[in-house]
C-alpha cells in the first residue's frame, strides 16, 4: 500500500497532531494519566493527544502497559491519577457504558465476541443504543418493532459490507474463522457509532494477506466514518504502514512519540525492543527516566518485529531522535 507520511505538528504538553487537524480540538487527550497496581506504577505520566481523524499507534514490548491504557480509557480500570479528556469532556466519574454512549468503542486483545449469538445479533448488540422500541412493543411485535428492526438489519448489512462479510450474517460468531472473528469485533465496535475506535492487536493471528487487507480496511473505516483510531499492534508493517502518530511505551512510561520514520530511527525505541549492545550505545544517548542498570536481553516479540529490526536495525542506530529534546524540556 502506497502511503504518504503525515506531517505532525507539535502541541502543548509534548503532544503532536497531524497537520490537517492541528487547529482542531483533540478527540482524546490524557494528562499525567497513571495507575498503580499494589504500589507498582503500571502506567505513569501518560500524555497523549489524538486528533479527530488520526490513526495513532501505541506500541511497546510485552507488559509495557498498552492494554492498561485501553482499560483506563474505557474505564475498565479507574485511574490512580491524571485526567482523560474525551471529545473535550473530562471523563471523571463516567462509566464504561457512558463512554460507549459518548462514542468510544474498542476491541479486545483476546477476542470477546458473544460466541453463542450469530453475527447479526452480535452487531445488533453494538447497535443497542440506536434501536428504539420498548419492552411491550418488542414482545408484542408492534409496528415500531418491525420498523426499528428493519433499520437495524440494514445497518448490519451496511457495516458487514465494509469487510465483505454480508454472507455470514446467520453464522454463529464462535464458529467463524479467527480472522473473521477479529473483523466482526471491529464491526461490532463500529456499530456503537463511535468517534474513537480503540483496536487492541487487530492483526494478531492474521496471515500477511489478511493483515494487508485489514490495513486497507482500517484506513477505509477512518475515511468513511471520519473517526479517530488508536491501535495497539505488534505487527510493525501495519503500525508503520498506516499510523500517523506513534507512541512507544516501555515499563509503563512513554519513551518516544513521533511519526513512523522518527520512531523507526529512535535509538531508545530500538533499545527497548532489542536490548542494547554496549558498543552501539554511548552513555549520552540514554533517555531520562530509563533505568541505567537494566540491560534488556529478551528477544523481540513477534516475527514482524524481528523482520523490522533486521531491516532497519543497523543503520538506524545513528538516526536523529526527537526523543532527547522532548524529554529534556518536557518532564
Amino acid at each position, binding site marked *: 500500500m502506497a502511503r504518504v507520511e503525515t506531517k505532525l505538528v507539535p502541541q502543548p504538553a509534548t503532544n503532536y497532531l497531524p497537520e490537517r487537524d492541528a487547529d482542531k480540538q483533540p478527540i482524546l487527550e490524557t494528562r499525567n494519566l497513571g495507575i498503580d497496581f499494589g504500589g507498582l506504577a503500571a502506567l505513569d505520566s501518560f500524555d497523549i493527544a489524538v486528533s479527530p481523524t488520526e490513526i495513532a499507534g501505541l506500541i511497546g514490548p510485552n507488559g509495557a502497559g498498552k492494554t492498561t491504557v485501553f482499560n483506563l480509557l*474505557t474505564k*475498565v480500570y479507574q485511574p490512580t491519577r491524571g485526567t482523560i479528556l474525551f471529545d473535550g469532556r473530562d471523563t471523571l466519574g463516567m*462509566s*464504561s*457504558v457512558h463512554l*460507549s*454512549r459518548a462514542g468510544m*468503542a*474498542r476491541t*479486545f486483545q483476546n477476542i*470477546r*465476541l*458473544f*460466541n*453463542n*449469538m450469530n453475527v447479526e*445479533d452480535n452487531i*445488533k*448488540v*453494538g*447497535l*443497542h*443504543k440506536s*434501536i428504539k*422500541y420498548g*419492552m411491550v412493543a*418488542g*414482545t408484542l*411485535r408492534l409496528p415500531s*418493532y418491525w420498523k*426499528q*428492526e428493519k433499520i*437495524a438489519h440494514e445497518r448490519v448489512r451496511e457495516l458487514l459490507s465494509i469487510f465483505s462479510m454480508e454472507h455470514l450474517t446467520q453464522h454463529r460468531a464462535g464458529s467463524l474463522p479467527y480472522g473473521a472473528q477479529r473483523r466482526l469485533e471491529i464491526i*461490532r*465496535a463500529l*456499530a*456503537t457509532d463511535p468517534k474513537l475506535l480503540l483496536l487492541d492487536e487487530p492483526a494478531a493471528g492474521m496471515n500477511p494477506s489478511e493483515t494487508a487487507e485489514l490495513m486497507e480496511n482500517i484506513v477505509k473505516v477512518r475515511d468513511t466514518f471520519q473517526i479517530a483510531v488508536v491501535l495497539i499492534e505488534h505487527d510493525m508493517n501495519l503500525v508503520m504502514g498506516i499510523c500517523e502518530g506513534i507512541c512507544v511505551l516501555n515499563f509503563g512510561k512513554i519513551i518516544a512519540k513521533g511519526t513512523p520514520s522518527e520512531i523507526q530511527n529512535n535509538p531508545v525505541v530500538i533499545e527497548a525492543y532489542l536490548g542494547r549492545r554496549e558498543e552501539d550505545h554511548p552513555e549520552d544517548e540514554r533517555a531520562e527516566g530509563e533505568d541505567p542498570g537494566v540491560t534488556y536481553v529478551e528477544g523481540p516479540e513477534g516475527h514482524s518485529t524481528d523482520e523490522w529490526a533486521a531491516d532497519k536495525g543497523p543503520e538506524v542506530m545513528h538516526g536523529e531522535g526527537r526523543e532527547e529534546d522532548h524529554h529534556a524540556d518536557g518532564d
Partner: protein
Amino acid sequence: MSFLSHLISGISLGSIYAIIALGYTMVYGIAKMLNFAHGDVIMVGAYSCFFLMSRFHLPVIVGVVAAMLVCTLLGVTIERLAYKPLRAAPALAVLITAIGVSYFLQNAALLLWTSNPKVFPSIAGNTSIKLLGGQLSISPTALLSIASCIVIMVALTWFTSSTRMGKAMRACSEDKGAAQLMGINVNVTISMVFAIGSALAAIAGILLCSAYPTLTPTTGSMPGIKAFTAAVFGGIGSIPGAMIGGILLGIIEIFGKAYISTQLSDAIVFLVLIIVLLVRPAGILGKTVQEKV
C-alpha cells in the same frame, strides 16, 4: 384412561414448575447466581392475589396483574438490596444471602399473615371439563396452567431471541464486560431479568394455589426447590431446558404418586435429580462449558 388423566395433571403441574424454573434459570444465566428466594416470591404473589380477591373482591384479572406488579417490585428490590452489593463477592456469599432472603420472606409472611392456612379460591372455576363421554375429566386450572406455560414460553423465546433487550440479556450472560463496553447497562439488564422472573413467579404462585388451594407462608418453598431441580434437570441457564425439565418433573411426580407411592413421590423427584447430575451434569439441554481456571 387414568393414565391419560395422570399425564394431563402431570403436564399441568409440570407447567407450573416450568414457569417457576424460568425465573431460576434466567437469573442464573445472567447473574450466575442461584436465587433461592425465588420460591418465596411465589408465596408473596399468591398472598397478594388472595387478599385482593377475597378481601377487596376485585376481579381475578386485577388480582393477577396486581400480584405480578407486587412481585416485580419485590424481585427488583431484593436484587438491589441483597444481591447487587455482592456482585463482586464469591458465589458462596451470594448463595448464603439468597437463603437468608428466603427465610426472611417466609418469616415476614408469618408475622404479617400468621401460619393459619388460607383457602385460595380457584381462579378458573370448578366445573371440570368432561371428555370422551365423561371418562376423562380435566380441571380448568390444569388447562389454564398448560396454556399459560405455552404462552409464556413463546413470548419469552421471542423476547430473548429477537428484541434489543433480549439481545442485551444474552450479551450480558455471555460477557458482561464486553456488553458494558458496547453500551449496554448491565445493572439495568440484570434488574430487568429479576423483574421478568418475579412477575412469572406471581403467575406460577396463583396457578399453584388454584390447583392446591392451601396457602401458608411456606407454600412456595417446596415448589421452589422442585422448580430449581427442574431447571438443573433441563440444563440451568437454558430457557427451553427449564420448560422441558419442569414438565418432565411434573409428569414424574404425578406418575410416582399414582403408580409407586404417594409418600415417596418427592423422594422420586429428587432421585431423578441425583441420577441426572450423575449421568449428565450439565442437564438435558445444558452445555458443558469448560471453566477457565
